Structure formats: structure tokens, C-alpha cells
């Protein structure tokens, strides 16, 4: 691991100022992606700006018809939150399937979303529920946030503070975990909020998380697994690696989407 200097700001403003002033500075949340990446020398930030001392960045609260989750809220907090389990059980369930218990004690929602790993679970829920990402500068709708592999709409000195999830009528997440890493080989998140239907896939796309509009249209007539029976996504555009070919991933998208709709309906 390359040497770095650590900073522990007490406010979001101080953290943002450090990101601007220090060369090659990176935010540290739970560290469960960044620290392994630094060990491999795939990342070598000169400055680490740790967010754990910043007040007000964690916790889950209901605001009107939305659940607002602080960026530093850990996966286990989302998994076990009574208000989350009651309002959006699909999201609590998703958090409970990330990694393993020790990882869930440290990993955070903000860290996961900012990293936008193409096989991560949270991007599927954020896009699948039409959430809004709140930063120190602005509000970004999920449709505008994810920009490809490990790429987001975040600017260099922008910090996620909260994620706002609207309550939906129906939602479910089904994933086919990679047997070794527990990342999603393919994961499908479906939701229905009045007339808005979302079918979102993580793990499969060569360019990260994406919506399947053909499935969404088919589900508008009737929200049930039969409505998307026989529908497929093209293998073109799917990721292909030692864990699964593009064709296999495309096939899984159809299978898991039907299972997710059945679980949500």
C-alpha cells in the first residue's frame, strides 16, 4: 500500500474543502472497497478523508412518503431497521444479502453508490426505486446518477449525504450471487409505484446498472410474471467473463426478472 495522510473532518463542509485543497484526496466511508483496492495498489490516494467523524451522516428516517437514509448508514443498519423492514422490505432484504455479516457491519450505502461497482447490489435498488441522491451541492435523480463502470455524476468535491427512497406499492430484489464473492453475478430489482414500473438489472450489463424498458412496458398491462414470460434481453451489451458468458447473463436477466415480479406481485 502506498503511503497517505489521513484526515478526520467533523463536518461535510470541512470534508469537501479537504477534497478541493489536497491533491489526490479520496473519501473513506466503510472502506470495504477502497482499502482492498489500496492494498493491491490499484488506488494510491495521497490523502484519505475519513467521514466517520462527520455528524449527521447516518440513520434512517421517514420524511413524508419517503425514507431518507444517511450516506454513512451501514448495510446491517438498513437490513435490521424496523422502519425500513416495514416500509421497503425489499431494500432491507437487499442490504442483508450484501457480502457477509462482518462486511455488512462496516460497508455503507453512500460508499457503495459512489463507487458504482457494476456488480454491486445498492445501485439496483437506487435506480429500481427511482431514488434521489442528495449531496452537499444538489439533488440528483437516480436516472441521472449512474454513468457507467465505476462512474457517477458526482463531481470531484461532491459528497453524498443522504439517499431518499420513495415508498412504493410493490418491490422485490432477486440476485444470483457469485458463489465466491457474493457480489451479484446478476441481480434484478423490480418496483411498482402507482403507474411507474421499474425493472433494473445489476451485475449483467457491460456498462453497469440499467433499466429494461421492454419488460417495464410489458408489466404495465398486468404486473405479474406471466406478462414477461418469454421476453429476453439481447446478449449484446452484457458483461462476459470467467464467471459467466454474456448469453448466460442475458438468460439470467429474464429468469430473475420473472422471479422478482412473482415475489413482488
Amino acid at each position, binding site marked *: 500500500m502506498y*503511503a*497517505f495522510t489521513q484526515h478526520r473532518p467533523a463536518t461535510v463542509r470541512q470534508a469537501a474543502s479537504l477534497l478541493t485543497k489536497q491533491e489526490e484526496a479520496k473519501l*473513506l466511508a466503510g472502506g470495504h472497497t477502497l482499502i*482492498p483496492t489500496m492494498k493491491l495498489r490499484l488506488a494510491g490516494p495521497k490523502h484519505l478523508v475519513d467521514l466517520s467523524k462527520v455528524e449527521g451522516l447516518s440513520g434512517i428516517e421517514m420524511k413524508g412518503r419517503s425514507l431518507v437514509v444517511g450516506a454513512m448508514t451501514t448495510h446491517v443498519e438498513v437490513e435490521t431497521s424496523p422502519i425500513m423492514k416495514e416500509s421497503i422490505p425489499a431494500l432491507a432484504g437487499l442490504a442483508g444479502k450484501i457480502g457477509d455479516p*462482518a462486511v455488512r457491519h*462496516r460497508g455503507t450505502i453512500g460508499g457503495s453508490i459512489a463507487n458504482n461497482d457494476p456488480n454491486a447490489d445498492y445501485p439496483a435498488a437506487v435506480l429500481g426505486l427511482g431514488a434521489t441522491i442528495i449531496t452537499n451541492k444538489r439533488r440528483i435523480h437516480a436516472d441521472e446518477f449512474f454513468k457507467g463502470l465505476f462512474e457517477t455524476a458526482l463531481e470531484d468535491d461532491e459528497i453524498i449525504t443522504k439517499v431518499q427512497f420513495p415508498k412504493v406499492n410493490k418491490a422485490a430484489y432477486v440476485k444470483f450471487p457469485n458463489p465466491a464473492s457474493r457480489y451479484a453475478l446478476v441481480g434484478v430489482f423490480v418496483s411498482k409505484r402507482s403507474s411507474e414500473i421499474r425493472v433494473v438489472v445489476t451485475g449483467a450489463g457491460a456498462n453497469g446498472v440499467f433499466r429494461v424498458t421492454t419488460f417495464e412496458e410489458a408489466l404495465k398491462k398486468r404486473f405479474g410474471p406471466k406478462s414477461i414470460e418469454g421476453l429476453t434481453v439481447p446478449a449484446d451489451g452484457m458483461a462476459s467473463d470467467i464467471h459467466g458468458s454474456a448469453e448466460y447473463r442475458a438468460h439470467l436477466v429474464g429468469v430473475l426478472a420473472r422471479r422478482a415480479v412473482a415475489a413482488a406481485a
Partner: protein
Amino acid sequence: MTAVALTVNGKAVTGDVDPRTLLVQFLRENLRLTGTHVGCDTSQCGACVVHVNGKAIKSCTVFVWQIEGANITTIEGLAEPNGPLHPMQEAFREHHGLQCGYCTPGMIMTAIDMVNRKGHELDDPTIRHELEGNLCRCTGYHNIVKAIAAGAKAMKGHVQVQS
């Protein structure tokens, strides 16, 4: 260098460390608590699991300064040096839940965290799901699962010696 202060197994400890120092390095190299192992060093195998403020975490994936002031329990802190074993340790002995023993400290710390969160009556699927972050390369998991189920029951009414 950066100064850190923690409580480890009930004792206040301090150190002056390079910021790159991981909790597991600090435990093993500064404090010589070598019961906590490094297996994969990539947050997958669970040999390095310890409790930080009562929660199981992988000590290979936390810088020691990140948890400044925290209360740490390692495998050495579960029982008095010459006293009886912790009920979960005893269950691993009784059910032969180990072969080479390398993964065992992490398995036991994970198992105790599991009981703290899920209670004393743990069925097979629950234990196996909860063990996803702990790898054993000797024997498979059959006796480990048996040991955890028995240890969970035996932990009823057990009072932790410290921390």
C-alpha cells in the same frame, strides 16, 4: 506516524503507528495478540474477525486509526488464561469443529456475534448463511455448524469475562 488509543480485551492500549497500519497488524505486531490470523488479506476468509464495539468485523480491512477509542475483543479475550474455555470454544473442542485450526479464531468470533444478533436457537440454514464470510479449507463445515449450534445453546446465561 499517528497516535492511537484503544481498549483491547478490557485493557487500555496505545500506539504510535504508520497510518497504513491495519487493525490486524496492530493486534498481532504491536500487541503480540497472534490469535487473530491473517488468511487472505482481502476481506474474504474471515480468519481475522474480531469484535469492535461488540460487532464482528474483518480486522484486515480497517485502519487502526479509523476505530480510535473503540472497544476490541479478540479470541484471547474470551476466557481467562487458566480458566474454563468460553462456551463457544468448548463447543468447537467438543464437536471437533476444527482440523488445522487456522480459521478457528475467526469462526468463533463470528459465531459469538451470530448468537448476539440471532439468539441461542440457530438452525442449520441460518448458521451456514451467516458463515458466508468465513472460509475453512480443511474439512468443510459440517462439524463447525454442529459446534456453533451447540455453542449457541451453551451460551445461555454466559457472562463475558471482560469488555
